[in-house]
């Protein structure tokens, strides 16, 4: 039995949770058809819609844990629910998306059961011993690791599997009310602020993003970048070097430790394309890179590129756009 903890966003299963189900399906096949159960905790919106979704992605049952304990999120209380359902179903594998909450809940479970946990798994390579490959050094390297104990606990790195529906029937829904000890309710969200008036929200949902990295040169080097973004009706996204140096605010950062973007057009300028940056922009439909180095990973991975100094290329592009728009 494989237990997949499913997260929802605005009442629908999150993309990374569906990617996690894709890995679980592959694992189930390798293991001779072990059943997959999905577990959703607390208020997840329309439960039967969720059951249809997780069913279409290979889960035969959706366990839905409810109760006062799940009114607001806490790592320990969520883990208590997973622990109870795992014990009752005898699951030998427990997995979740490699999101902040997914990693947190599985790490709590690992500590409670005193078993190892592998974070950000991208693949499994053997069943006995169970061997997984996971991202380390922010994705710049992979680690092959054995997970010999049961249950095997791991999270799945985003974008490492494709969330494909297999048209399974809706999962059967089973409602449970797990007991949660008082000690597991100490650290819970006490309040949730309005979504930071879309400081990074606009970046995450933008259809056009103009990016800038160390190549901008200084805090004053963003003039043409801001201008191109406004000419295209897009927003600015930056690399971590830029936020670390204090040139731009953190909410503009794209990447593993910033926002994940999926625009129709991304124009990264003076960004080398480190794997941690790539993790946040890989879903862009078209990438037009501007870089002085024709061999920079951002250039070689882009759809189109201009090799040159962004401080010369961007003003020329802006000028050309203004000229054509009359």
């Amino acid at each position: 039995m494989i237990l997949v903890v499913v997260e929802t966003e605005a009442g629908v299963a999150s993309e990374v949770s569906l990617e996690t189900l894709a890995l679980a399906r592959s694992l189930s096949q390798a293991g001779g058809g072990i059943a997959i159960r999905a577990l959703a905790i607390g208020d997840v919106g329309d439960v039967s819609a969720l059951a249809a979704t997780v069913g279409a992605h290979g889960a035969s049952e959706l366990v839905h844990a409810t109760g006062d304990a799940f009114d607001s999120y806490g790592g320990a209380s969520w883990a208590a629910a997973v622990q109870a359902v795992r014990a009752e179903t005898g699951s030998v594998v427990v997995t979740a998306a490699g999101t902040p909450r997914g990693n947190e809940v599985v790490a709590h479970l690992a500590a409670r059961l005193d078993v190892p946990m592998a974070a950000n798994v991208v693949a499994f390579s053997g069943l006995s011993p169970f061997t997984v490959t996971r991202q380390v050094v922010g994705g710049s390297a992979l680690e092959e690791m054995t997970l010999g104990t049961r249950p095997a606990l791991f999270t799945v790195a985003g974008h490492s599997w494709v969330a494909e529906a297999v048209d399974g029937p809706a999962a059967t829904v089973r409602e449970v009310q797990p007991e949660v000890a008082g000690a597991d309710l100490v650290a819970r969200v006490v309040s949730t602020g309005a979504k930071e008036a879309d400081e990074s929200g606009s970046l995450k949902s933008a259809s056009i993003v103009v990016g800038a990295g160390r190549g901008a040169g200084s805090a004053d080097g963003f003039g043409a970048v801001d201008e191109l973004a406004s000419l295209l009706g897009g927003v600015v996204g930056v690399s971590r070097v830029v936020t670390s140096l204090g040139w731009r605010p953190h909410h503009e950062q794209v990447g593993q430790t910033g926002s994940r973007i999926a625009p129709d057009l991304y124009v990264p300028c003076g960004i080398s394309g480190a794997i941690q940056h790539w993790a946040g922009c890989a879903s862009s439909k078209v990438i037009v890179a501007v870089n002085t180095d024709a061999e920079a990973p951002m250039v070689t991975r882009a759809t189109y590129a201009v090799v040159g100094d962004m401080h010369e290329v961007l003003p020329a592009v802006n000028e050309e756009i203004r000229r054509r728009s009359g």
Partner: protein
Amino acid sequence: MRILVCVKRVPDVGSEVMLTADGQSVDARHVGYTVSNHESSAVELAIRVADATGGSVTLATVGPAESTDQLRHLLGLGCHAATLVEADPTTLGPADVARELAAVVTDHAASGAGYDLVLLGNDAADSGDFQVGIRLAYALGWPVVNGVSTVETADGNVITKNDGPDGEETFSVPLPAVVTVLEGGVEPRYPTLKGRMAAKKVEIETRSLTAQPAGASRVKLVVPPPAPSNVEVLGEGPEAAAAVVDLFEKLGVLR
């Protein structure tokens, strides 16, 4: 308020990683070592809380003797004391590290110098296990909050803010507690000359492991091969502007 910050000596890698010949670790000979941004932010938050409450900041690390380089640097920022649990990092897994850090906390408490708050990074920059702080909290029987960007204390509670899926989340948890920090909420300070001089005089407590480590179950590390390139170069320098704008027109992104 007495605060402990757990930091790890990690290779200062950029986008490209080299591995040692045995595939067991990152080869840092050419890049050197550092402390990750998450942990630097944790140190900054700790110093601010200590300053606000008239408290002190102690550092703890489990790692090689050379970790004293990182400890001295952080002492130069205004931390007051440091403990090194000396061990070969290739023999350690996250459960081992958590057990050793818990032993530091309990032993210091037993000698009358316990902690109200323990800060760590959310995840280590090299091993990225996402779990040492949580395991430490369970070992101590303390509550834990993860991935926070700010930390304050008031009335015996630690109050944290983090970026949650539905907006900014606040936790308020009774002390003693464990909190793990994500970079971005504060700007870590730079050492002052005076701080660096003072740091040289601090005596770093050195301990050895309290138990045989279980290890990380690592088979080996690999560096993934670069993806094949299909890039179409539109041109070089400002002369490429017309080709770029032609493309923008074709994509229909011009307003």
